[in-house]
């Protein structure tokens, strides 16, 4: 460091007494980082759902409609429950349970598709059994945003306002996560 730089540094420290670092932290609370400032193009949105997810809040539909993207709703049946049923109550009961859940899932997919299409969004759907965390993370690789319900996976209680499954998915997805 040359004399000039060290002189400026000394005088700067003398004048601001460390308050610049505090100001930077304050700014960081509401000022976007350079990365956040880049307006990314959003073409594909993933919406993982399950038994716990109900109608989408109107605010979410409005936010998604801003992107003019294609929304893919993926209904993921919890494979662990199916395996448990298989082991404890036998294959027949498991099949019966799965059929009922799939029918309910198809109904929910149709209902949510209508809701999103009414907002002008293009919608595709899929329904499969798998891991609600691992499969959501895997699918996210080919999407620009993942919209996660607070109740996805386990539902919520007063003490856990966001489902732990949602938290885990949000932490591991390969794109931006939006929790509603």
């Amino acid at each position: 460091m040359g004399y000039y730089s060290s002189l400026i540094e000394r005088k700067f420290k003398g004048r601001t007494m460390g308050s610049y670092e505090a100001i930077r932290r304050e700014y960081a609370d509401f000022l976007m980082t350079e990365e956040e400032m880049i307006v990314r193009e959003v073409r594909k949105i993933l919406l993982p759902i399950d038994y716990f997810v109900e109608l989408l809040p109107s605010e979410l539909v409005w936010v998604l409609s801003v992107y003019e993207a294609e929304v893919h709703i993926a209904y993921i049946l919890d494979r662990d429950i199916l395996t448990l049923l298989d082991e404890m109550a036998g294959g027949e009961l498991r099949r019966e349970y799965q059929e009922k859940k799939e029918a309910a899932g198809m109904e929910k997919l149709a209902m949510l598709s209508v809701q999103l299409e009414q907002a002008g969004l293009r919608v595709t759907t899929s329904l499969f059994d798998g891991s609600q965390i691992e499969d959501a993370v895997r699918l996210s690789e080919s999407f620009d945003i993942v919209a996660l319900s607070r109740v996805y996976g386990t539902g919520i209680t007063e003490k856990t306002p966001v489902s732990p499954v949602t938290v885990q998915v949000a932490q591991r997805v390969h794109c931006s996560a939006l929790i509603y």
Partner: protein
Amino acid sequence: MLGDGLGTALISIFIFLLTYALIVDERVHRAVAAMFGAAIVVLLNIVPWEELLVYLDFGTIFLLMGMMIIVNTARNSGLFEFIAIKTAKAAKGNPLMVLLLFSAVTAFVSAFLDNVTTVLLLTPMLLTIARLMKMNPIPFLIAEIFASNIGGMGTLIGDPPNIMIASAAGLSFNEFILIMAPIAVIDFLILLGMFYIIYGRKLRIEKDDQDAIIKALSSLDERAAIQDIKLFNKSVIVIVLVVIMFFLHGVLGLEPAEVALIGAAIILIWSREAPEMILEKIEWPALFFFGGLFIVVGALVQTGVIATIAEAMVGTVNSTGEAMILITWFAAMASAIVDNIPLTAAMIPLIQDLGTTMEIYPLWWALSLGACLGGNGSAIGASANVVVLGISEREGIQITFFDFLKLGFLVMGITVAVGLGILWFMFIL
């Protein structure tokens, strides 16, 4: 003076030069340097204990203290960040508008509040926008520095040299508004013109890029910057009230320092902010720096050094007009080297001594003009320069001493010449 007291005078000159050298270099904090110099002159009894209060200018110290309390309380509310975001949005991603608006806001806020706080809080936003526009931030940063020093010149409370001059000469807030504010406005317009000529062509971007910047800026919420809406409203009201009181302080029979302290008391009692939090944010080192300087310069007065220099000056200049030219340019050049605060501290008793032989009223304005605008002359000329350059260095933006000097001296030369011309027109013609 140079009889029995020759030794004492030489010692006081040596201590003065040593203190100022330490302040320029700042290897020890400037407050420590000033206090060290003051301690020596007190220890050697050059300034006797009973004379200390004569040299300590409490008008300056209490005015600075009151304004620090007001500004620090307002800062807690997010007022400055709110102004920064509003300004950024208003510029609509147009680089020229960013330069114009940020310079105008900096100049205006600096005229009423502390320059350091103003640039400290506006610079991060300015850097963010420059990055967003993919523009070289240097023109914006340098314009902000110059605007801060020019704006600060416009009022009694805008810049520490003005506070010191007003306190020593008993000048009112309205006198500064009538004499220095028009000069500040004209110099600011000249500054903008110079920047347009020098950087105008480079400050253009494509329409698509501008749209993207507007989109990104629109996601910034200025309301999110307000940390406490009640405190925000109270801060704005108190600042406006204090400014009104400054305008009326002559009518109210109050000194400027009293106005600042009354404002500070109002905001402290009304905001309900913990006083410990606010009072510990008062820049005590700055106040002790001023206190130390007054004593070190007081030693020169006490030993007759200032009177001897004044006598020599009277022998050199034949009229108030000549003295005005000499003081303006000397103050401007010297401010660029030693920082305008210690320079002003040394010049005040000199002008007071000249009062025995000539009309000194115009000389106070000459000193204000030279000291405030001289700050633009070099990278270390004023505190605002050091703060913006320090932030720039932290953000990896290099503005070399000579890069600053080239532009700074040009701006200083033109603005001081224009200001001096206006003062000449006001007082000499």
